[in-house]
């Protein structure tokens, strides 16, 4: 027979301060855990959500990111003549030879940032239709002008509309802001590819982005690039290219966050144990009475475990509430594959919140187990006598 929940609730009401402190003690580690987990969640959402399956990113063979890659002008010109490449209405091949430069630039928080500047052109914009201009205009080819992601403009000094930043051989003026719907270009500043290359004395592109009409044709193009030894190029479908940059479980910040949450969770569990032992001590007589009117040992065990679990879940929910204001907050960390900053939003998905509650429940059960066992194991006679 189960001991009614009302019994536990009444007790919690009788000692609200102790219950609240225990719950709050469990809430903090839960919040820490949620924030740690929200980090890779947001980061990888950017990387897994970027890329059009019809686009192929062409790099130098052996490279897996644009930062490491170099594509000479001749192969780039050759790609433009291949039959697999889609043509635009004016019969021009739909592709974009691009270069990327990682530039040191001060962030608004005073730290040094690694800004990813992409040299691109009309093709690059056409191939990324989700990138929309929201203010100002696009950069003019041949002029030292930048159109930057609005998110980047907010995070870096001198990158607001109309401001100037020096790198390469020019002072670059920000003439427009774009929005890339939270995808990878939202961490980038765009400029004219030829001017950027001459500023950095580059003779090679970093990559060529190519539109193909269908998966079959794309596979054919990949094979052609792979077979042609003279070109020494490799093509990745754009979504795969970004997916390969997914930051794994080795992410240092995630590791720190998990480490902290688990140790804090142990501390909070100890707090719960203390509270539950006190509860058991206060209720020695009641437990004996419950037992003598027929409640089984396991009912007593379950009742105390449920009480501990209830307090922990309350703390877990509070922890979720404390973490929620961070949902959507933009932050950035280095993308270890490109060494550029990657801006992303903290994301608290329902699955994540469930994990947080699960963590809190585990803390509660872990903390409540020993006291509950003690309560269940006492003999009725001894408890009665003890009073």
């Amino acid at each position, binding site marked *: 027979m189960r001991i009614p929940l009302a019994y536990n609730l009444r007790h919690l009401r009788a000692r609200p301060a102790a219950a609240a402190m225990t719950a*709050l003690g469990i809430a903090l580690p839960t919040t820490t855990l949620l924030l740690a987990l929200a980090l890779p969640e947001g980061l990888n959402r950017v990387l897994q959500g970027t890329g059009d399956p019809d686009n192929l990113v062409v790099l130098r063979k052996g490279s897996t990111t644009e930062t490491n890659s170099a594509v000479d002008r001749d192969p780039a010109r050759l790609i433009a003549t291949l039959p697999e490449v889609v043509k635009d209405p004016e019969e021009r091949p739909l592709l974009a030879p691009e270069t990327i430069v990682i530039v040191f630039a001060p962030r608004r928080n005073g730290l040094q940032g690694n800004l990813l500047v992409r040299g691109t052109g009309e093709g690059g914009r056409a191939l990324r239709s989700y990138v929309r201009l929201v203010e100002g205009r696009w950069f003019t080819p041949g002029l030292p002008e930048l159109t930057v992601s609005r998110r980047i403009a907010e995070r870096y000094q001198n990158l607001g509309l109309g401001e100037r930043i020096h790198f390469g051989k020019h002072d670059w003026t920000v003439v427009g802001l774009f929005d890339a719907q939270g995808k990878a270009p939202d961490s980038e500043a765009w400029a004219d590819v030829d001017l950027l290359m001459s500023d950095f*004395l580059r003779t090679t592109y970093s990559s060529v982005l190519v539109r193909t009409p269908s998966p079959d044709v794309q596979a054919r193009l990949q094979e052609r690039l792979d077979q042609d030894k003279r070109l020494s190029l490799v093509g990745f479908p754009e979504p795969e290219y970004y997916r390969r940059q997914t930051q794994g479980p080795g992410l240092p910040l995630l590791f720190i966050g998990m480490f902290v949450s688990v140790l804090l969770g142990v*501390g909070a569990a100890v707090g719960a144990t*203390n509270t539950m032992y006190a509860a058991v001590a206060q209720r020695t007589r009641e437990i004996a009475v419950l037992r003598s009117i027929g409640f089984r040992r396991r009912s007593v065990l379950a009742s105390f475990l449920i009480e501990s679990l209830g307090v922990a879940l309350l703390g877990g929910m509070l922890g979720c509430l404390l973490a929620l204001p961070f949902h959507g907050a933009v932050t950035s960390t280095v993308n270890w594959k490109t060494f550029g900053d990657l801006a992303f939003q903290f994301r608290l998905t329902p699955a994540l919140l469930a994990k947080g509650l699960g963590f809190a429940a585990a803390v509660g059960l872990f903390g409540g187990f020993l006291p509950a066992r003690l309560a269940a194991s006492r003999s009725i006679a001894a408890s009665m006598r003890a009073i």
Partner: protein
Amino acid sequence: MKYLPLILRNLLRNKRRSGLTAFAIFVSTFLVVALQTALYQFENPPSEQSRFRLVARHATSLQNPLPEAHVDKIRNLPGILKTTPLTWFGAYWKDEDNWFANFEIESDTFWDVFPEVRLPEEERRAFLADPQGCFVGRDLAAKFDWKVGDRIVLTGQIYPLNPELNVRGIYDGPDSTWLLFHRKYVEEALKTSAGRPGRVGTIWFLVAGPEDVAPVSARVDAAFRNSNGETKTETEKAFQLSFVEMMGDLRAIVRNIVAAVALTMLLVAGNAMAMAARERAAEAAVLRALGFPPARVGFLFLSEAVLVAGIGGLLGTLLPVLLFFNSSPEPIMFPTFRVPTGIAASGILLALLVGALAGGLPAWGLVRRPIAQALRRA
């Protein structure tokens, strides 16, 4: 002091609770000390002469190499003692996840600037004699199980070259997690590669003392202003820090975590002390009825809280100090993990503060309540 036995007796009355509370504070203090040490070691990488060692890199981007000619130009500037280039090669071994630091070095001058990289003399000679030779740090060698005489093939990611190297030596040093090989080998192999020959990544040099750091840095950067290889010169420490900061505002993160830990600690300890105070209400009233001044009764209770917290804090501080004195938990990331005195002290201080706060409010409650009421309640 004469009350110490009383305080201890009270402490041991509920051994389980005192023990658990001390344990919670122990875990939390350990966390605070370990995290702050991690941050400290990140910001102050170990090096015997890092204060006088400067590094020049391209002013715009780490991705941009510097012209090789810069090395000799810097070498001839006044105030500079020794100079050597160091180029990040950025290769992995077998699998992309086998990531480690690998550099091309100018073998003749490398040890002038990095004397702390200790390689036995015969291994050094063997390395210098073999154009395809390399030598690796002891920790790295242990990680991949490399031995002197092994042949290893790296996969280059930045340059189209997969170096085939012979391990000629194993070095010891503050950071023994690098692989180093001849710059000449790469230059030779990439002779025809666009944009590579004649470039170096970074240039390292020594100055005589701390007073030379600022003027010499300025002199180097001025020498290359308006060239196509403008430099940014900084101390080794600042250079390393810029990598750490790429991850995010670590200091803010650690600060927030420490706050969360302290608050959790306070809640756990505060709750335990509140429970103790409830049980002790009648006794405190009796003491006061006997004529003990309220301040002393409160003080007795407060000392108990501070003592429990202090024991937990002391253990939580000692553990990382002893545990990591000679071994780092993650040698690749932290060559050493020694806890600085200041951080150890702050750990104990934080625990004591938590004890005082946690005991303070219940102590105040014990003292404030009228004696008659407290006795009646009991």
